[in-house]
């Protein structure tokens, strides 16, 4: 009998162990991961999520456009009547519409409860009130409607920008389902073994969306999995492994902390990617944006380095007012406009054919697109035919519609031996033996390949440099660039290392910074560094926006339509002088 019991116990233990599933050590997963925003990372098959999206679309057709709270999900069912009173009022109704245009914006009742004494004091009310808490998705604000419980009437309405709403139980269930549905999250989640799951409100400080954190804590072990869910876009932002919750010293994951942890870890770390026939090395520098390093096409090095050191921003109607904006790391850097996300690489498709790869790294001021906030991008294009483009993108907004932007590019092509530099003069290629600068203006002539410069190595291989005149990017307005050709000196830095800032913000002449490396009479006999400073003027004219951004209502929340300004030259390779 005893032997039988022991055997059954053994089987039982074995069965339980088998049911827990394989446990992968927590340490084998990345500590913090960001997923791409705006792309449905989680499958659209989550029933609760689909249902909520449909419900939102229906609610947006109603007035007021409010997701009400069901009795089942209310913490105080007896007070749910107050919700109807609040939603019937004109004041609440107006708050769920966009101020400028009157369009419906999504609101959701997040709580109906007795008003707290501190809330009543703030609202200058005395008595017995129910509080109807309503979250406004568009303005990321909290509306508090005070309802007199005895009189059953609305007493007052207050709005609190940036305040967090209470968590809705139905939203918490949806957040958990969205989190678990993401394959990468599920892998970590299941790897923790038996665990407790808690959903709590978190903060999305930068996107200004409604966000929840799904916290998965294993019953054994010292780590917890925090999954951040964007409840405005109904998508997973990312996850982070944190120390087990300690109420004496609570540590929270928010959008800001997660982004800094992920992107900050890549600062100055050289990454490598293979893109078809291309192999690129790159790093997120402290304050020179993404620097491309050692770029190879079909095994041959074509580019030593390329980066944008600064964006010079000036406003001619305000004397000496402007900035030299450095892009770069979000932590421990001299960057003024920083990376919140990792770079994105996508195929370039034309007429149904993939013709290359596009690499984009985004940088923002924290509250873009509010006034005097900026958003820039590094844009690199690598084509199957060996040509490549080094570009910068300006997505507004800036301090006014009279802004001038001059990004400073430093590009060091990899050519064999001494480099010959030539300029197209309208009828042929004219060699330039000495360091010089050049302005691309209305009178500039271009070769039949649309090139302005030609750089050739000793082996006869080289590049045509094609500035943008509007032909390289849809809606492009041309580079109007200052170009500088400077001899590369191995024993001089001359912009090679990370520059916290470079050149004055507000000059309108060739004096943008690189001219300091041009010495009178210095020959271009050797390697050459190419500096390029395009000039862009923004515009907010309707139908002709450029380097601009406008808000609009998307599914009830605030989204942005950008009008990018893209500048930068295309390098077209040739061999044996042709």
């Amino acid at each position, binding site marked *: 009998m005893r032997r039988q019991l022991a055997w059954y116990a053994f089987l039982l233990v074995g069965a339980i162990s088998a049911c827990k599933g394989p446990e992968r050590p927590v340490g084998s997963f990345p500590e913090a991961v960001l997923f791409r925003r705006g792309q449905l990372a989680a499958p659209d098959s989550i029933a609760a999520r689909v249902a909520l999206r449909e419900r939102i679309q229906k609610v947006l057709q109603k007035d007021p456009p409010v997701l009400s709270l069901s009795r089942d999900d209310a913490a105080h069912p007896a007070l749910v009547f107050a919700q109807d009173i609040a939603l019937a009022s004109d004041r609440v109704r107006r708050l769920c519409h966009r101020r400028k245009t009157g369009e419906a914006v999504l609101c959701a009742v997040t709580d109906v409860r007795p008003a707290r004494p501190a809330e009543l004091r703030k609202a200058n009310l005395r008595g017995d009130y129910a509080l109807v808490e309503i979250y406004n998705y568009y303005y990321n604000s909290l509306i508090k409607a005070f309802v007199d419980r005895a009189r059953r009437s609305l007493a007052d309405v207050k709005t*609190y920008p940036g305040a967090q709403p209470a968590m809705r139980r139905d939203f918490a269930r949806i957040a958990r389902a969205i989190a678990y549905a993401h394959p990468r999250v599920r892998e970590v989640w299941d790897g923790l073994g038996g665990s407790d799951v808690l959903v709590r409100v978190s903060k999305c400080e930068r996107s200004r969306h409604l966000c929840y954190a799904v916290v998965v804590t294993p019953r054994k072990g010292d780590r917890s999995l925090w999954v951040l869910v964007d409840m405005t876009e109904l998508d997973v932002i990312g996850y982070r492994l944190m120390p087990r919750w300690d109420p004496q010293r609570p540590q929270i994951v928010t959008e800001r902390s997660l982004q800094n942890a992920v992107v900050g870890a890549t600062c100055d770390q050289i990454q490598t990617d293979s893109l078809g026939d291309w192999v690129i090395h790159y790093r997120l520098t402290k304050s020179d944006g993404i620097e491309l390093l050692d770029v190879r096409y079909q095994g041959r090095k074509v580019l030593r380095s390329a980066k944008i050191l600064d964006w010079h921003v000036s406003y001619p109607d305000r004397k000496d007012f402007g900035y030299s904006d450095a892009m770069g790391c979000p932590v421990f850097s001299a960057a003024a406009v920083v990376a919140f996300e990792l770079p994105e690489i996508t195929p370039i498709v034309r007429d149904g054919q993939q013709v290359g790869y596009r690499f984009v790294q985004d940088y923002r001021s924290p509250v873009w697109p509010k006034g005097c906030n900026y958003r820039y991008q590094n844009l690199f294009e690598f084509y199957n035919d060996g040509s490549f483009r080094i570009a910068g993108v300006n997505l507004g907004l800036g301090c006014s519609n009279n802004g001038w932007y001059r990004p400073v590019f430093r590009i060091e092509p990899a050519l064999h031996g001494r480099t010959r530099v030539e300029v197209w003069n309208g009828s042929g290629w004219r060699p330039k033996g000495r360091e010089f600068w050049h302005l691309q203006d209305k009178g500039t002539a271009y070769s039949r390949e649309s090139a302005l410069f030609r750089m050739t190595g000793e082996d006869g291989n080289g590049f045509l440099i094609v500035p943008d005149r509007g032909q390289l990017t849809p809606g492009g307005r041309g580079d109007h660039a200052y170009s500088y050709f400077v001899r590369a000196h191995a024993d001089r830095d001359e912009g090679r290392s990370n520059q916290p800032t470079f050149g004055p913000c507000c000059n309108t002449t060739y004096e943008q910074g690189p001219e300091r490396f041009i010495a009178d009479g210095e020959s271009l006999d050797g390697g050459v560094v190419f500096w390029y400073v395009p000039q862009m003027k923004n515009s907010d004219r309707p139908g002709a926006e450029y380097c601009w951004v406008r808000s609009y209502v998307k599914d009830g929340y605030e989204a942005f339509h950008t009008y990018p300004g893209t500048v930068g030259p295309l390098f077209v390779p040739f061999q044996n002088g042709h």
Partner: protein
Amino acid sequence: MARWFVLILVLLIAGVGLWKYRHRPPNGEMAHPGPLDLCGANPAFALKYGMHPPLLIDTRQNDGPGLRLMEARKGGRVLQLDNWKQFGYLGPYALDKDGVIYTAPIPFVNLGGHEPGYFNRILRLDPASGQLEDWMTLPSPAPATEDNAYGVTGLAYDCTTHTLYVASVAGSDANHERGRIYHIDLKTKRILHRLDHFDALGLGLYRMRAGKRLYLGHARSPEVFSIGLKESGGFRGRKPKFEFSLAAFRDGSYDNAHRIRFTRDGRMIVKGIEFNFSLMAASDPQRNIYLLRYRAEGDKWEFVDVQSQQE
């Protein structure tokens, strides 16, 4: 034997009494819980320019570098002398009992043409002349670099000792927390005490029932710490104690405690912003104001509220 025992006992009591006398609060009023910087006086020169107290000090950088003095009323006058712009953008400030304003330059958007080590200094605005001058450059545990150009990040004045507490993060980098808190005698400019290996932003002084405490906003996390102070101003121990996390409060964000102020009626007001040792700039910065209230029962701070402050 009994005589010796009595003698030792008397000496012991006398010794304790003397110790307590030497460590007594310098001012009877200051023995009660309350802020330690309320003696700050309006600078006299401001009256010559027609400014009427009470005055506020403004270093928000809204209209360019330097600081401004503002009358604390709607539509009040604003004063900015040209001399106040020479050091670039300014950040933390403290006001002493004589109306001296201490402040420090900060990098804003870029380094303004300065070397990274430039920002590890204290400036003094003379209350009589209204002139802003370089007052003291602080030592740094490691050379400043472009990866962290910040120097002085917080200032707090102690009325009871006429001394200044100064937070500096100079020399810190991503992997090494080398920040220091200096305790400086304002008469002699001598560094009296120093606390190492803590990167602080906001500083604030408060007398709790159990004694003086210096509150420190951590530059690397949303946490606020505190450390006990002797009556003479020295630090009690070497490690600040965790008090609370701004991110853990309802409506809290992953902010850093940038300014810590106390009011006469027992409130702690913490201004939270994003700080990452970068020069990331934003107009209309997202500031959150965290309010805590002192509770005599328990001699502790209790969270009340946080509000988003848009400019």
